[in-house]
Every structure is written in C-alpha cells, then in structure tokens.
C-alpha cells in the first residue's frame, strides 16, 4: 500500500490551519503520516479540543461539597447522599440532525447514554432541548418529525425514559437546528468508573459493535459552518443501533460489578482515536495498539479509517492484566464483539500498528494537552445597541385581550407539547412521578425517599439581545423550575450553541453568555460539572441566536413533597411570589415576538441573589407541605402561567379568578404578558395561608394574594376572561395545528 503524501493543502482540507500544521511537524520532528494527520485533525478539532472555548469555560464554578467529578471526564458526578450519586451530561448533535434528522437525533441519544454508563451509572432519564426553524418553513415539519422519531426510536428501545425538555421555533434556526440531549444516571459512590488507562502492561480491550466507515470525520464536520453542500455530508452521519447499545449497557454494568477493569471510555466523537489518547492522557501513560485486531464490518479499511470511524455502540476498556477471560465471558454472553487490541505502556507514546508496520507514533500529551488554545478576539457587534431600542408605547393595543390570550397560549412555543412527548416512553423504569407537562420532571430514586427534579431551559431571544443577561436568566429559570417542583438545585450541565468563534461578535456573545451564567451559578452556589460546546452553528454565514441551554438537576430529600404546576383544589388561594418585580419587561418577550412580530428591547432584569432566595423559599414551602401547586413565570408572563396552571390540571381544566398585580398605570396587555423574572405563581389551601406568608417573610420574598382557584372561567379581573375548556382546546391544538399534523 502506498502512503499518501501529507501536504499543507491536505492538512487544510482536514481543517488544520497552516500554523497548526507547522506545530504538528515540530512536535513529530517530521511530516506526519496520513493516519497521524487524521488523528491530529480530529483531536485538535474544535469539537474535541475546545480550543476556542477553554479559556472562557474556566470561569464556571465547578467545585462544591457535593461534586465527586467535575468537567473533564465523560460526565460530571454529584453526591445525593446515602452513598449514591447522579452522573449527568448534556451534549449537542446539531449538524448530523439537520442533515439526517432521524439518525442524527438517535445517535445523539446513544452517544450521551454511553457517556453516562461508562461512568458506572445506570441511565434513568433523558431530556431534550430542541430548536427548529420557523414553524411554516418548508423543512421544519420534516425535521421535527425526524428528530422526534429518532429520539423516540433510540430512547424507547434502550429503555430509558425521555421525561422532559423544551422546543422552540425561530427563523434563526431555519438552516441550523439544535438537538441537545441530556442524560442522568444513578451510581453508587464505590462503583464510579473513569476513563483512565493506568497500569503498565494492562490489556486494552475493544468491545461492542464492529467498526465500519460511518461517521468518519464527524468531529470535523461539527467544527465547520454549513453551506449548500452540507447535504453531501450525509455519509458522515452515523447510524444508530439501540438494540446493540442496550446489550452494551447491560454488559458494561455487569462487568462493573466485578473488579476486573481499571478504566473504560465510550468511543464517541473521533472514535478509537479520542478514547485511546484521552484515557492514556488522564493516566499519564502511553499505549500500543494493533489495528489488525479491531473487529470490522467492512473490507479493506485503512488505518486512517479505523482510527477515525465513529461507528456507534463501541467501548474501549482497560482491564487488569490476567482478568481478560472474565471480561470476555460477559461480552460473549451478550453476543458482543470482544478483542484485546493493545496494552498500556509507560513511555507516554501512542503507538499504532497495522499490517505489521507502525502507522502512527505520537506523544500522547501532544494531541491532548498540547492542543492549541485560542483566546480569540471578541467585540460587541455594531448593531447591538439598535436591537435594544424599543418604544413600547408605539405598540398597537389588541382589540380583544381575551382572544390575544388564547392566541398566546396556542402559539407553538406555549402550546401543549403532547404530540411530541406522547411518542417518548416517559414511564419506563417506573421512576417518573411527574411526567412531562410541568415545570420540571421528577423521578424517584428507588430504595430511598429521595427524588430528582430535572429541567432544561434557555431563552435565546434574551441571549440574542443581551447574552450576559440571557445567560444569567437561563440558569435562574432552570433553577426556578426545579425549585417549583420542591427541589434544591445541586448541579448544572450545559450545551453552549453558538456561531463561528472566529468572528469577534460571536466570541463576544460566547464570552458574555458564559460570564452571565457563571455569575448566576455563583449566586446559587451551583457547580457546572459537565457540558459541551457547539460552535459553527451557521449556515451561509448567518449565525443562530446564541443558545446556551442549561440543564438543572435538583434534589428532593423526600420525594413525597414534590409539587406540580397545575392547580389542585377548588377554593385554593392564588399567590404571586416575587410580587415586587413589577416594572414592565417586554424586551425579547414572547408577546412582542408572537403578537407584534418583533425581537427587540432590553431583556428582563436578572437578579440572581433574589432568585436564590426565591428558590430557597419555594423549597421550604414545599417541604413544609404548605402548597398545592407552584409554577414558574417565564415566557408569556403572569397571564400564560395562570392559564397553564388551569389547563394542565388532571383530570380536566379548572378556572381561577385573580387580580392584576401591576400598578394601574401599566397597560393591561403589558401587565398580562410582561416577563419579569424571579416570580412564581403559587396556590395553597386557605388554612395554610398564614404559614406560607411567614415562610415568605423568612426568605424576604414579597407575596401578593391574587385570588382563588375555582369555577370554569380563567379570569384576570377587569382585563380578560376565557372559559377554561376553551383555553384548553386552543392550547392543545396549537402545535399540531401549526405543524399540520393531525391529532
């Protein structure tokens, strides 16, 4: 076989700059082989190396008394007590899902699941944060259908419930959808595994599916902008096999109950390359591998292809020497491939052989630790100030506020998402106590009284207008959501979706959003323990709104104190917590976008210290069993939160009558839909009123009694009233109607 000569042009085609190529030659002291070029190109890709984001990611708080594993591993791990912990992470699969929605979304689920069980945790919940283009874009319906089916196809089959998420539609995602998937697993402290290749002489074992040519250069694809030719990249999208992954999951967890292994890592992006180099790097070791021993499903695969393939459902294991047979027996039981392909060495070199010759010989640290780090220039976009200008008084006053209210509830962003989550198995593993449709999903942890609350949030309109404030709000809102279910926020994973980092204005958005998120996390003392950065979310040079999705994990010490957003009893009193927040906040609001067709203005004021107090209060009120319901106020403001609490009640909708808490001088439509932060809509039995108000005083939260639950009409006195069943009907039909799907 003739070696392909490696030139700087070839390096450029691999996404490496001339400077980076020079650096590789300097490290090796020679020209790289084609296989080595492939290895460097994926390991130094933005996706794997975080070269443009690293300097900013350091701003996140990552430590805390509960943190057992922070960023840098396959997933973060946070203690929940009683010797148990939760492992979780969120990851994007944006580009593949746009090109091939079913497989792109499915393998997004598969990849993040492996990140969790590779740590020794059994996955118990999935969330999805989805962003599609405008709802009437010709491609949106196809993409929604494909992505939702793909998530369902993978998650349902492997048997991990999809318990929540969010979905938005906006023109800025027309050519670049976002598919962010979060997984959480439960693990015993003494069964946590890490991706380390320690112990010289220990065998390196390949298990799982066979290797094919699918997904070669997926990591590089994720590090490029899109253009007209992106459709041609379909072959770089991997194909998922959830059945094999289910076998792999059970086999790995069975293996982890033995003490036969020292490290394990999923072959995700950049496949065998990233798993082998990263595991050796963490342990400060080297390795030798013989690619002739890699199980494969296609003929005549080159070393380059074997190292870069992103075939799914594969794991790399470092076992204790002499324990190979135990490992083999477990994988054979589950009908999975098993092959010892190399061993750990002490010289710090990654040495890869094929066909009896060495095809790559690279110092391990050179591809991992010595990857380039860029502090890229950042600059506030010139047009940013213009975006913030908004003259509210010029907005036409709606002729019928009751109709406007219904229209808001029926818009795709607010409307019932049942058409989506009905396709997901939300109940399997019998832990889901709060199913989709409330502020946060709540799962029980079997064998304890504890519960886990989960929410994922980001308002990208706010982030577009002011990424710093938008970043703060994303954290605060997700914390508020888990607090409304009665939980204490204990950890964050994030998925930072941005445009091209080589553009200073994108870098400014990125830096600002991270600083805002970090500030809010500090106020709450919540660590960011895992996450992922997705840059180059641009098509033909047009970037998406900055979209830093925040997944919040909350803990309930006693899951029987959980709350839902829906009102419960006729006669319960309705309160607004955070009632002192009554300036008009319309910048970036849903009302402005949906009814007036504008994305402009200064986004709502964020006050993380107040939010932390509010969350403390909500948790205390829940644990003292003072509340019947709690609902976070977000998009659509007070009016939409009230309507949601009414229409989501099980078994059927109920009415409520409240007063307008805003000063009389405020326009009625603004009072209804103003998106002030730091507020929650609560209901409680009259007998609990005094205790509830006392709890609010303890946490210095201003409460206002607004009215009561009951009747069949949802009403804001003197402003608008809609029959509850009519509101429910509008809300239920909104999404399917807009997408043109029946029922």
């Amino acid at each position, binding site marked *: 076989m003739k070696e392909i000569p490696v030139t700087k042009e070839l390096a450029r085609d691999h996404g490496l700059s001339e400077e980076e190529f020079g650096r590789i030659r300097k490290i090796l002291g020679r020209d790289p082989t084609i296989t080595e070029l492939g290895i460097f190109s994926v390991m130094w890709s933005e996706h794997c190396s975080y070269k443009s984001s690293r300097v900013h990611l350091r701003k996140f708080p990552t430590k805390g008394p509960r943190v057992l594993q922070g960023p840098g591993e396959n997933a973060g791990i946070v203690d929940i007590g009683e010797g148990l912990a939760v492992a979780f992470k969120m990851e994007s699969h944006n580009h593949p899902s746009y090109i091939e929605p079913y497989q792109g979304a499915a393998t997004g689920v598969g990849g993040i699941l492996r990140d969790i069980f590779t740590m020794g945790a059994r996955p118990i919940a999935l969330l999805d944060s989805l962003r599609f283009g405008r709802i009437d874009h010709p491609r949106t319906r196809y993409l929604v259908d494909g992505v939702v*089916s793909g998530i*369902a*196809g993978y998650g*349902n*089959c*492997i*048997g991990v419930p999809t318990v929540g998420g969010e979905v938005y539609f906006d023109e800025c995602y027309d050519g670049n959808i976002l598919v962010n998937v979060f997984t959480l697993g439960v693990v015993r402290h003494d069964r946590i595994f890490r991706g380390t290749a320690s112990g010289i002489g220990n065998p390196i074992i390949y298990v799982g599916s066979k290797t094919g040519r699918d997904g070669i250069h997926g990591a590089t694809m994720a590090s490029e902008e899109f253009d007209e030719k992106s459709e041609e990249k379909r072959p770089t999208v991997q194909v998922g*096999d*959830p*059945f*094999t992954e*289910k*076998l792999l999951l059970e086999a790995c967890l069975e293996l982890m109950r033995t003490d036969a292994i020292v490290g394990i890592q999923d072959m995700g992006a950049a496949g065998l390359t990233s798993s082998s180099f990263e595991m050796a790097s963490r342990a400060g070791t080297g390795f030798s591998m013989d690619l002739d021993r890699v199980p494969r499903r296609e003929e005549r695969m080159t070393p380059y292809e074997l190292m870069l393939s992103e075939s799914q459902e594969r794991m790399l294991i470092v076992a204790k020497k002499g324990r190979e047979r135990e490992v083999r027996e477990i994988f054979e039981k*589950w*009908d999975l491939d098993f092959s010892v392909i190399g061993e750990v060495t002490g010289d710090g070199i990654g040495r890869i052989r094929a066909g009896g010759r060495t095809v790559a010989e690279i110092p391990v640290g050179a591809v991992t630790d010595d990857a380039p780090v860029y502090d890229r220039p950042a600059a506030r976009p010139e047009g940013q100030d213009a975006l913030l200008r908004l003259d509210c008084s010029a907005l036409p006053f709606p002729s019928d506020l009751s109709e406007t209210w219904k229209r808001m509830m029926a818009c795709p962003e607010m409307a019932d998402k049942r058409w989506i*989550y*009905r*396709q*997901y*198995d*939300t*109940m*399997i*593993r*019998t832990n889901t*106590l709060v199913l989709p449709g409330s502020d946060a999903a709540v799962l*029980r942890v*079997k064998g304890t009284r504890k519960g886990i609350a989960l929410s994922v949030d980001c308002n990208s309109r706010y982030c577009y207008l002011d990424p710093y404030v938008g970043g703060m709000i994303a954290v605060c809102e997700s914390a508020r959501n888990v607090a409304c279910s009665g939980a204490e926020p204990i950890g964050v994973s994030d998925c930072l979706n941005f445009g091209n980092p080589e553009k200073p204005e994108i870098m400014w958005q990125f830096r600002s959003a991270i600083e805002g998120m970090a500030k809010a996390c500090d106020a709450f003392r919540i660590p960011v323990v895992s996450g992922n950065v997705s840059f180059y979310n641009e098509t033909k040079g047009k970037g998406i709104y900055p979209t830093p999705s925040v997944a919040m994990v909350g803990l309930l010490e006693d*899951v*029987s104190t959980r709350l839902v957003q829906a009102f419960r009893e006729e006669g319960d009193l309705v309160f607004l917590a955070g009632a002192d927040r009554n300036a008009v906040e319309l910048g970036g609001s849903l009302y402005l976008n949906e009814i007036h067709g504008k994305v402009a203005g200064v986004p709502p004021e964020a006050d993380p210290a107040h939010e932390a107090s509010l969350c403390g209060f909500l948790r205390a009120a829940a644990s003292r069993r003072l509340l019947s319901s709690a609902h976070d106020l977000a998009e659509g403001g007070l009016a939409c939160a009230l309507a949601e609490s009414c229409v989501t009640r099980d078994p059927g909708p109920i009415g409520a009558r409240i007063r307008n808490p805003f000063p009389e001088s405020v326009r009625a439509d603004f009072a209804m839909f103003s998106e002030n932060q730091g507020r929650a809509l609560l209901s409680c039995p009259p007998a609990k009123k005094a205790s509830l108000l006392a709890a609010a005083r303890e946490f210095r939260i201003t409460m206002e009694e607004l009215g009561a639950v009951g009747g069949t009409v949802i009403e804001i006195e003197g402003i608008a009233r809609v029959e509850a069943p009519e509101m429910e009907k509008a809300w239920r039909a909104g999404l399917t109607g807009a997408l043109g799907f029946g*029922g």
Partner: protein
Amino acid sequence: MKIAVLVFPGSNCDHDAYHTLKHVLSADARFVWHKESDISGFDAVVIPGGFTYGDYLRTGAMAKLSPVMGAVKRFAAAGGPVIGICNGFQILLESGLLPGAMIANESLKFICEYVNLRTETSTTPFTKQIPEKTVLKIPIAHYQGNYFADRETLAALEANGQVVFRYCDPLGNASPESNPNGSVGNIAGICSKGRNVLGMMPHPERCAEEEMGSTDGKRLFTSMIEWVEEKGK
C-alpha cells in the same frame, strides 16, 4: 411461590416487572435468562416488555426461537399461568401460544400514555379479583400494538370469551375514539383457550404503587398470585 421474569436480549421492562413483584408484592421473583431451557420449579411466568432483538425482523419473531420459549410452551400446556406484556404479548403471538398478530399503530407513531381498559372477563388467573366491566387505568407504550386477527379467529375469540381487555373511555364504552392504536374490536388483551396464557399491550407493572398515579396494575398480579396459591392447596 416462585415467579420467573424472562430476560431476552433487548428486554427492557424486566426490571420493572421484577420490582413490582418482588418489592411491591413481596413475591419471590427471579430473572430467567433466555438461554435457559428448564423452568421447572416456577409457579408463574412473566414475559416482560421491551425490544427483543431490536424488533428487527418482526416484533417477537426472534425471541420465539430462544430455548426458554420451548420451556414456556410446556409450562403453558401444563396449565401454568403465563402473562406476556407488550413485547411479551408479541412474543406469545409469534410463538403461537395466542392467535392473531400485531401491526404498527394506526398513527404510525410510538404512543406512551395512560389508557382505560374495560375488563371483559373475570375467569382468568389474572383477572379473578377484578369484576367484569371494571374500568382500569393502565399505561401503554408501544409502536406495534395494533392487534389484528382474521374474521374467524376473532369470532372464536369472542365466542370463547378470550378477549380479556378492551380499550374504552373512562365510562367503559369501547368507542373508536378510545382506541389508541387501531386494534380490531378495541382489543387490548386476550387469553388462551385454556385461559392460563394472557397477552396484553398495556403495562400493569408500571402502575402498582400509589405514587405512580394508579394502582390498577397491581390487581392483575395479586389475582395471579391468589390463583396460584389456591391451586396449590
């Protein structure tokens, strides 16, 4: 009494069935790997839901070839109670232990939600504690739960009282609107002629505890346990 919970490659409701039997009902439940060919000593068999062999050929088509299914056939022939849930129902159909077949849901979508079931007969080991016409609230979670059988088979099922559950509205009317997947005759579960083999698409193991929102599923398992205990006397 000992209850076998079968585990095939791709079973994924096995833990849930085991949890309900063992931890909620304090029964002696054991996992049985699909390569076992002997299930003597067990008093009942649960074939749990999941995606055995990824549903790749046809749902249940591969699982029926596993050694354990030979043992299940002998167990059923001897009158032992067997309940197949969701994919377990599909395996029973493929194995010939129950008549008919499953096709994809009418909507061509996976559906996961609570449904209402009307109990059509109390004369099975699994419904002996549930009076006829009782409406149960139990969730479904499947893509291929659209039950189909030819006219003669259906007539025989009805004539023999083998239809155990029908999808219905909260008041017990088996209307077209309350049929989630298009199943012929709103059929959600059927039993064998001998009445000891039950196949059903809804998941009783998911709703056996107060905090899950319904405990109706528990009644099927307590019926089964009582039936076995009475038979043993």
